[in-house]
């Protein structure tokens, strides 16, 4: 009965939110809601404990990691203080009412238009979010909104509705909170689908989360490689990283659906390591981008030459870009490596249908990683290298000593997480235990990977690379001749160029993204067909 009531309420609310506007008097919407409320009361389905529910807050392993990420992003100015506070409440809420209220307030705080009428986009999103999450919590815990009373897997139609409601709420969060929406979406998925839904969940939830992650990551990565403004590029890159985190959570759900808890623990750890690392280097990148924009304006076409005119700021940004480009020895690569291991491992768990879905997800992740690497190269080239392309860029100065100290601290943290990713993994183990019933196995302080296979040992790589660079530098030593810039063997007049626009146009042409998206959709179709045939 409960799922039917929820469906009815969802239908009425969505219909009401969609119709409200100049042509449909508000009284109709309010009237519909009032009728629904009265009907609920008459049927006795709105018990007193929901009305009187006191808000409760608690920090566990999952919320602690994400709070750390949020704090780092807030410290570096990526997240505004008001939003930071509200989102901290979302992460700390220990019951459904508190979570919905805090998230709805965050939506309103981020809305560009005042939520003065039912017809405003913010109002519609808040309403839809509240309905989705209320439906999910009702199905998970009945009329008791406290998280402590949940942890039972919904079966049948209820399971389908829970997954759809959570995914819709996560998608709304991604759309409504541009910079950190993916972080909160990942939290909603992890909390509601992995934590509160009990130890046994259907595997197809994982496929749905993979689809959401892919839909979030690919366009964002493309925007990051095309944006004409530095802040937009950095923010889009962050969204793509958060989408990648959702891909890892999809793998965790697939693994748990197949009862492979160690693999699920690895996937959860991979997601949280990625997000934790992003908190550090994404904060570094966001802070350095803000400092650059304050000096040169926001247009990439007006920047250039920062590495020579502001070496400290330039090197800090370079460290962030190396992480964004998933370069080995930096935290982005370690997390990407672990996410891929989780996706590959999940492929061994299921049949050919699951394999097809995962092959699509791996292709998407490859495309996202490639686009992020392109974005890192492009941003590095346009901001750090070449000649300044505007007067303010030519006069760019180093930030104050205190800010430089902050940047240095973030660079040290970035390098530490890159060279010793096991440190980060130890921080996220409590969350893995919470969500997957056990810690990720085979995690040392410097090497990561499954216990029975050789993994990724960053310090060994560091020694090899340092030795090779030293040898190559020694062999190629000698005096350096400085000459005028040349082209085709001739001295070139006019140094520097506006590459941003041309690069963007060129990137828009190839059908690589379309091809990969088609592959992913084909994979899903194939999975459905194979699953149907297997039955």
């Amino acid at each position, binding site marked *: 009965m409960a799922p039917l009531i929820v469906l009815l309420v969802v239908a009425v609310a969505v219909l009401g939110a969609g119709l409200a506007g100049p042509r449909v008097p508000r009284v109709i919407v309010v009237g519909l809601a009032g009728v629904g409320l009265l009907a609920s009361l008459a049927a006795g389905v709105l018990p007193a404990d929901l009305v009187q529910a006191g808000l409760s807050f608690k920090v566990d392993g999952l919320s602690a990691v994400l709070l750390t990420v949020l704090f780092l992003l807030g410290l570096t100015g990526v997240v505004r203080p008001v939003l930071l506070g509200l989102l901290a409440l979302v992460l700390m809420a220990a019951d459904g009412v508190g979570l919905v209220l805090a998230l709805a307030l965050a939506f309103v705080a981020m809305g560009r238009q005042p939520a003065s009428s039912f017809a405003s986009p913010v109002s519609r999103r808040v309403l839809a979010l509240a309905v989705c999450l209320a439906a999910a919590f009702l199905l998970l815990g009945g009329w008791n909104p406290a998280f402590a009373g949940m942890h039972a897997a919904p079966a049948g139609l209820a399971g389908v509705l829970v997954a759809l409601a959570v995914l819709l709420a996560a998608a709304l969060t991604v759309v409504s909170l541009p910079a950190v929406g993916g972080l909160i979406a990942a939290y909603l998925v992890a909390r509601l689908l992995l934590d509160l839904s009990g130890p046994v969940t259907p595997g197809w939830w994982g496929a749905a989360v993979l689809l959401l992650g892919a839909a979030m990551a690919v366009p964002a990565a493309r925007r990051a490689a095309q944006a004409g403004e530095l802040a937009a590029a950095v923010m889009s890159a962050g969204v793509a990283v958060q989408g990648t985190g959702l891909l890892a959570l999809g793998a965790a759900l697939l693994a748990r659906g197949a009862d492979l808890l160690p693999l699920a623990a690895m996937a959860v750890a991979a997601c949280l390591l990625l997000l934790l690392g992003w908190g550090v280097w994404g904060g570094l990148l966001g802070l350095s981008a803000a400092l650059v924009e304050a000096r040169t304006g926001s247009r990439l076409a007006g920047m250039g*030459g920062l590495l020579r005119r502001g070496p400290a700021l330039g090197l800090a940004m370079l460290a962030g870009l190396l992480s964004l480009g998933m370069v080995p020895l930096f935290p982005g690569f370690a997390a990407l490596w672990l996410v891929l291991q989780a996706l590959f491992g999940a492929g061994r768990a299921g049949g050919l249908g699951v394999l097809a879905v995962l092959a699509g997800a*791996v292709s998407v992740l490859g495309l996202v990683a490639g686009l992020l690497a392109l974005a890192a*190269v492009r941003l590095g080239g346009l901001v750090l290298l070449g000649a300044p392309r505007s007067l303010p860029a030519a006069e760019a100065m180093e930030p104050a000593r205190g800010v430089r100290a902050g940047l240095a601290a973030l660079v040290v943290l970035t390098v530490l997480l890159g060279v010793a990713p096991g440190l980060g993994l130890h921080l996220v183990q409590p969350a893995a235990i919470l969500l997957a019933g056990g810690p990720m196995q085979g995690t040392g302080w410097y090497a990561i990977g499954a216990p029975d296979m*050789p993994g990724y040992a960053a310090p060994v790589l560091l020694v090899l690379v340092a030795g090779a660079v030293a040898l190559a530098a020694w062999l190629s030593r*000698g005096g350096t001749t400085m000459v005028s810039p040349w082209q085709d063997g001739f001295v070139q007049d006019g140094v520097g160029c506006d590459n941003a626009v041309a690069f963007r146009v060129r*990137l828009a042409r190839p059908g690589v993204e379309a091809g990969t998206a088609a592959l992913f959709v084909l994979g899903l179709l194939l999975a459905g067909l194979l699953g149907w045939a297997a039955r």
Partner: protein
Amino acid sequence: MGGPVTAGLTLLLQAALMTGMALLLAVLSGNGRARRAALGPAMAQVRHDLVRLWRKGRVVPAGASFLFAAAPVVAVALAAVAALLVPSFASGLAASPAADLLLVAMLLAVSRAVLALAAWDAGSARLVHAGAEGLLARLGAVPVLLLVAMSLALLSGGTNLDAGLAAIRDGGPGARLSGALAGAAVFAALLGPAAGIEPWSGRLRALAVLAGHFRSVAALAVSAAIGMPFGVAAAGAGPEAWGVGIACWLLKLGTLGLLAAAIGPQRLALPVAAVLAGMAVVAAGLQVAA
């Protein structure tokens, strides 16, 4: 076997093999280009070019940052490390635990990207566009290599090349078919456009050229390791087995190098590689299901 001295010796032997093969590829690719263009230099000319560039010293455009001069050095170092990690004549060598396919692929990609990045510092718009075009053209290689890694992980449980080589060699026909398809995919992905070296001159240009050849050797070695895992000395075998392994490796790499030089860069290389990699994943999945 075992012991730090043996480990060091095998590492040095592997480094010597890879460096020798990189220089050989320089000659082969020079001859291939010359044959396609129906003109030009033979082996002696290629060697002469490299020596001439090396003698010219380091030439840097005024106004460039330290990255311009550092990029070829870093590129050649990363490509050489990638080549050093790939299994060649024997399993279970000192570098085997670190021989991860994802790591090797990423080292090769960064080796190429660092050159494209430094092109921004050279002061020429055309070179920047050339570098960016080169990177865009290689974008499709990332999903291909990840699918290859997926097939390897399905067969061996991880992405370590040494373990993957053993799993393919000792597995059934399905495993060997998957390995052959994956190896062919890596080979096809290699046949894309080469990285631009125009921004550099003198010794730095020679390093950028060498980095390209090290990248080719590493990619061909990966293709040989998972596509043709025969003739590789088993872990713990003695120097006699190494001799056989070295001869087989030289034969495999030489053949693949000649083939790559003869075919040259192809526009359809990446789509073909994607299809081959997808087939490798399906074959590996069928093998696991069986």
